[in-house]
């Protein structure tokens, strides 16, 4: 799969002001810290990894008619990092319709980084063969519908699947089997082990009316109470949201494909067509930082440009 040579650079760059950005995570003193690729970084020996999300390969509607190019740009930026990341995490919706060609494109493009990629499926990745088309390509060696854990850089990483057998409550779901596995998985770990959990749909309820949350996410988090540092990485909502609650920091990543509206700001969570030239004023540009304390949630806007 090659990148369309006819893609106009100007239009492409406009897209890149809101999409195609990966998140770099640096773990220092057991606490992962994030920043968007492109912000200043000095070369160093810190343990870092990269998160990308929601590449939706195969999507070709007006919100972004070339999602392959924007993913490629994100990956190019990963390749330019002075401090080579240990690996890449993709938090789901790798493809738009779970088609073999879409998975192939993802494998080829992401393989170009020469980085190991750890993935979890989004609901768009399990539309064919009851999810087997995903599992056969990206889920080898995983358990159940594709969950697993591994250790790297002194951190215990846990990939969870919350997009299978969705029910009428509208939210993502982990299910009994996966929760039991999770409880057993973390039992032998010491409380000082930094934990990074990644899943597609936010584990906490961002916006119930649009199904942006996981019905049994709280139960999963209850198994992680003893740990001093827990970081939860999600995708699905195509915008950056952050929230800190006790020792748990929640982050959602932007899409490499197209933005979606801020929770409740539009009639539906459908792809947002962003007018050229005004992109930075739009919701997909600003990150919203939700900081929780004993007081109600405070929202702090952080411009990605600044």
């Amino acid at each position, binding site marked *: 799969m090659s990148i369309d040579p006819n893609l106009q650079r100007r239009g492409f760059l406009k897209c890149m002001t809101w999409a195609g950005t990966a998140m770099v995570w640096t773990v220092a003193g057991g606490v992962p810290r994030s920043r968007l690729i492109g912000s200043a970084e000095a070369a160093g020996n810190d343990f870092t990894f990269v998160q990308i999300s929601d590449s939706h390969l195969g999507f070709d509607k007006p*919100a972004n008619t070339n999602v392959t190019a924007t993913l490629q740009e994100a990956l190019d930026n990963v390749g330019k990092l002075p401090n080579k990341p240990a690996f890449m995490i993709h938090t789901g919706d790798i493809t738009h*319709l779970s088609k073999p060609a879409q998975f192939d494109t993802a494998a080829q493009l992401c393989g170009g980084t020469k980085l190991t990629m750890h993935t979890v499926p989004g609901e768009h990745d399990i539309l064919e063969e009851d999810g087997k088309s995903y599992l056969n390509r990206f889920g080898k060696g995983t358990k159940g519908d594709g969950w697993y854990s591994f250790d790297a850089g002194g951190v215990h990483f846990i990939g969870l699947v919350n997009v299978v057998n*969705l*029910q009428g409550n509208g*939210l993502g779901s982990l299910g009994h089997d996966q929760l039991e596995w999770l409880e057993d998985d973390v039992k032998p770990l010491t409380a000082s082990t930094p934990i990074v959990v990644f899943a597609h749909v936010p584990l906490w309820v961002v916006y119930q*009316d649009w*199904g942006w949350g996981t019905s049994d996410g709280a139960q999963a988090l209850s198994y992680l109470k003893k740990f001093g540092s827990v970081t939860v990485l999600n995708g699905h909502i195509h915008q950056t949201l952050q929230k800190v609650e006790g020792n748990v920091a929640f982050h959602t990543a932007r899409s490499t494909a197209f933005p979606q509206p801020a929770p409740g700001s539009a009639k*539906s969570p459908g*792809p947002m067509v962003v007018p050229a030239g005004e992109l930075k004023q739009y919701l997909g540009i600003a990150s919203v930082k939700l900081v929780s304390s004993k007081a109600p949630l405070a929202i702090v806007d952080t411009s990605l440009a600044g």
Partner: protein
Amino acid sequence: MNEMLEPGGNARRLLLRRALAAGIIVAIGSHKAKAAEAQIVVDNFTFSPTPLNVKVGTTVTWVNHDDIPHSIVCPTLKVKSHPMDTDESFTYTFDQAGTYDYICGLHPHMHGQVVVAA
């Protein structure tokens, strides 16, 4: 395991069904109405109309007008459609009276209902 139903070729099947129904009406000279049909539009992450009231034997077609795929999942009927991408459709004929709740398999906050009268 839920039954998987193909969304493709719906238009052709619909035309064939109409042609067959028309042919039968001509052949037997009956005044009986052809099989009832109804449509549900998926737009802006909502099903419309909902509830949809129909008679037994009605063939219902869902058409997706969103830029994002949707699917139809009805646990009562054990029906699970393939994903309908933009402007694709899915049809199902309701043979039994009853009230059928369904959701979108990708966006389960989307709820719909078909009420089938005898």
